[in-house]
């Protein structure tokens, strides 16, 4: 582990203030839609610039600290500490927010949705929460943003306000706020045991030094943490995620493929690598337990996915499966495994968001939600379906999208850990990915639309440009990440590889 140089800066604070300010401005300009939407865009770009401006410091093996105030509890300060791992998540979320904002404009206006001010307001607050989670210096600060994220996404989930949406919202709260309760308990317990909740490279020392008498306590504590991160949608606590798919598609895209669920896995990796530490995890045997849960989720979620006909629901189960790749990578407790887990966070974000954006585009252009109705969509919406196909390939771990790389690392991690079982789990899960993604592609390109007997001339009817461009950009990025790895350029891919390198170097001695 290297000595870190600490840089004190207000940039993290400014970065999260962007969406917070935007939220207030959005409320104030609710009567003028164009002004309202431009606040979102401006805040998004500013925020991304601020987050990106932190890259050089981190690449220099530094951390950026911004302590706001010491809290009433001795040893816990409310503040931000940006390290390589946090920055990866922050970069992903803030970059994708810009794209999804554009997409939202196209989506919400095409469908003439109601309560758009509320929608943009909550979206901004949710991003505020997500970036806060990414940059937090300790568990308590993280918890505060975590709860803000939960509460602010609720109005988005039930946006439709139908009976079904409201009961979905109840389920969403029942799961995620119960999780919050477990998390709070785990955090206070950690504080009680160690006197600190700071994220420390290689784990909190005081926790590792507690000794064998506390072994059971630490195991229970770890499971409380796991329950607390129900946002990661590990089975059997996953069912809130498919239910939440009733939300408008941009919400499902950014929040339930990137911000909310990634906050969950982000938290799990934080616990594994920065609270417990790899050594303690190994000696308690918790890595294996975590990997088993993840392995189980991967296989079962994929089986569920095959059975879904609603495209968004199928994607939701796919998300559950892919999140467990990340958890599995962390659970393997090897260099390559953790590397794969960390790199899969941005990569899965970019790929899954493309898939969701495509689903939304299809819905706006054709009104179709179910896969069985999508015959011939490939001909009417070629760009959308091309983007879909590329990223679906990536999900299955097939080049030319970046999913291949993270899966490659994960497989190596499994080998490194000497757990051949998990290598097979990874491969089977990837195979199942193929099983449920290829029928979609097949239907879209090779099946005729229902009710059309003869070959009619197909007219291209894509979604509005506001929607098409963002999804193309994310698809292109998923390919660029792959090419960048092959060519080793490291510039066009936002330094993700370098950042992961540093993060892995920090946590594994």
């Amino acid at each position: 582990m290297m000595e870190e140089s600490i840089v004190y800066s207000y940039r993290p604070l400014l970065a999260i203030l962007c969406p917070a300010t935007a939220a207030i401005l959005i409320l104030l300009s609710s009567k003028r839609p164009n002004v309202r939407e431009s606040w979102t865009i401006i805040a998004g770009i500013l925020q991304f610039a601020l987050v990106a401006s932190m890259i050089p410091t981190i690449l220099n093996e530094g951390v950026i600290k911004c302590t706001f105030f010491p809290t009433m509890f001795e040893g816990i300060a409310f503040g931000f500490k940006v390290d390589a791992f946090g920055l990866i998540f922050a970069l992903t979320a803030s970059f994708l927010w810009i794209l999804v904002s554009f997409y939202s404009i196209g989506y919400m206006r095409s469908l003439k949705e109601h309560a758009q001010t509320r929608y943009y307001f909550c979206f901004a607050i949710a991003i505020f929460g997500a970036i806060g989670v990414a940059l937090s210096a300790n568990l308590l600060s993280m918890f505060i943003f975590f709860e803000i994220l939960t509460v602010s996404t609720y109005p988005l989930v039930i946006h439709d306000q139908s009976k079904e949406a409201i009961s979905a919202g109840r389920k969403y709260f029942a799961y995620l706020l119960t999780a919050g309760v477990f998390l709070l308990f785990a955090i206070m317990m950690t504080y009680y045991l160690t006197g600190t909740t700071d994220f420390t490279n290689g784990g909190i020392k005081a926790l590792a030094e507690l000794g064998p008498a506390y072994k059971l306590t630490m195991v229970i504590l770890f499971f409380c943490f796991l329950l607390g991160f129900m946002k990661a949608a590990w089975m059997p606590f996953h069912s809130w995620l498919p239910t939440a798919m009733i939300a408008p598609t941009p919400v499902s895209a950014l929040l339930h493929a990137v911000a909310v669920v990634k906050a969950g896995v982000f938290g799990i990796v934080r616990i594994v690598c920065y609270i417990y530490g790899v050594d303690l995890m190994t000696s308690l045997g918790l890595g294996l337990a975590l990997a088993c849960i993840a392995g189980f989720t991967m296989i079962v979620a994929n089986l569920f996915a095959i059975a879904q006909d609603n495209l968004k629901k199928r994607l939701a189960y796919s998300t559950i499966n892919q999140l467990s790749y990340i958890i599995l990578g962390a659970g393997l407790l090897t260099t390559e495994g953790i590397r794969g887990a960390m790199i899969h966070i941005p990569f899965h974000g970019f790929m899954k968001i493309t898939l969701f954006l495509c689903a939304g585009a299809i819905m706006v252009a054709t009104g179709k939600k179910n896969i069985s109705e999508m015959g011939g969509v490939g001909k009417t919406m070629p760009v959308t379906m091309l983007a879909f196909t590329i990223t679906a390939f990536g999900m299955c771990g097939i080049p030319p999208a970046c999913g291949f790389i993270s899966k490659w690392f994960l497989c190596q991690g499994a080998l490194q850990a000497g757990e051949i079982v998990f290598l097979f789990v990874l491969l089977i899960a990837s195979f199942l990915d193929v099983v449920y993604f290829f029928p979609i592609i097949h239907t879209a390109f090779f099946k005729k639309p229902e009710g059309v007997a003869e070959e009619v001339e197909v007219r291209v009817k894509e979604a509005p440009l506001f929607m098409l461009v963002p999804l193309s950009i994310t698809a292109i990025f998923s390919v660029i990440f792959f090419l960048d790895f092959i060519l080793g350029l490291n510039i066009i891919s936002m330094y993700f590889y370098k950042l992961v390198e540093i993060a892995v170097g920090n946590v594994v001695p």
Partner: protein
Amino acid sequence: MIVTAHFPVLVIVISMLSAFTILIAGRWNKKTCLPISIATISVQLFMAFFILNQVFTRGTIHYRLGGWAPPWGIEYVIDAFNAYVLVIVLFICLLTAIYAKRSIEREQPHRIVPFYVVFQLLITGLCGITVTGDIFNLYVFLEIASLAAYALIAVAGGRALKASYNYVIMGSIGACFYLLGAGFLYAVTGSLNMADLSHLLPPLYESKVVQAAFVFFVVGLSIKMALFPLHIWQPDAYTYAPSVVTVIIAAAMSKVSIYAFIRVFFSVFTTDFIRIYVPIATAISWIAAIAIIVGSVIAIMQSNLKRMLAYSSVSQVGYIVLGVGLYSTQWGLHGALIHILNHAITKGCLFIVAGAIIYRCGLWNIRDFEGLGKKMPYTCAAFTLAALSMIGIPPSVGFITKLCLLAASLEATEYVFVAVILASTLLNLVYFWRVIERMYFVRGEGEEENEIKMGEAPVSMVLPALILASLCIIVGILWLAGAKTPLLPVVDQAVNALLGTGVVAAP
């Protein structure tokens, strides 16, 4: 300097004088009542802040009434705890007075003058309980406040009469218990001064009379503050009283009863007594834990908003008492004292909103709240913030209470209490979210989006609600910021004084 030295007594005197002034001025012109009342409370609040500042910088204030030396004369003793509660109570009273203008004009147009007279008497009582350092004097003020409260509740007529009658019976029983306790202590020590008692009592701790007196105090004050299972007077009283009265009773008066409870607990008696002679801490912690759960569960079953909030208060009183029960831990008493402010702010806001909804729409049943979020956006926003605070979403005040009590329970290794606190979060979620869901998201049958027109309550009602709602968040952050803000050091000082040698050193 000469005037400021008399602030402890002036806080009470001007309040009482203003009650009579209102009575006389009100006969001449009804419109003078409100300005007089608001002016008085503002002056009182200013004095309270001044006292708080003085206590904080120079230490405890002793004021000898009429110059008679204690323990023969009545002594007013103000340390950080009194001053803290005094400021909270007067602040709530000020907002309530502003709020009262329109509310009482609508609900009791013929009784405006008597209302303000009794209201001012109630405040007199509350301030008196807070500043006094004499247990019998405390009883007198407790009765002044209670009698005023009985009258204010009864003003509404109808079912409120029965509620008030219940309260009279229960309250009088509570007062009797308290008086018996005071009498017993006087019989064995010959003193009524708290500081003096805390010095005279230790050798007598084994005496059954002293122990009985303690139990009488606890039971009497438990009735007054509606601790489960002695809360039965409370839901009816809160539900049927005029909106203004509910606000002040729920937010200010219950806090003062709790103040008296804690004061007797730690300043008349001492931690040694509670630990060794009447080991009551565990028992009341358990009672409080049951109160938290039962209060919340009953609240879930209510369809009347005010009644639901009333039961929620039962559970919130449980929080404070749980903190008191865990006094031996680092954060226990902190949690209790912090929650006194938190609950005053939050519950005050919620009852103000409940009153505003009744004022504007005449709705009290939660089922009828559809579309209210559009109709009364500011009121509902205030409600939402306060409800989130009740649930304990960070960084609101409710979250801070939860943190303190969790830390205390963990330190005491009482995992049952940990579970209770966490479970109550979810129970609070259930009954508050039901309301929010109705207000904002559930659509009525055949109801169109744009049909609902905005019809906000008057500014004098919305403003107090918004002030309190924003305080829910601001104060939460201030607590969290801990030592850097003036709030936590005041509580620190209060806790130290309580757990230390009693109210004061020997006179």
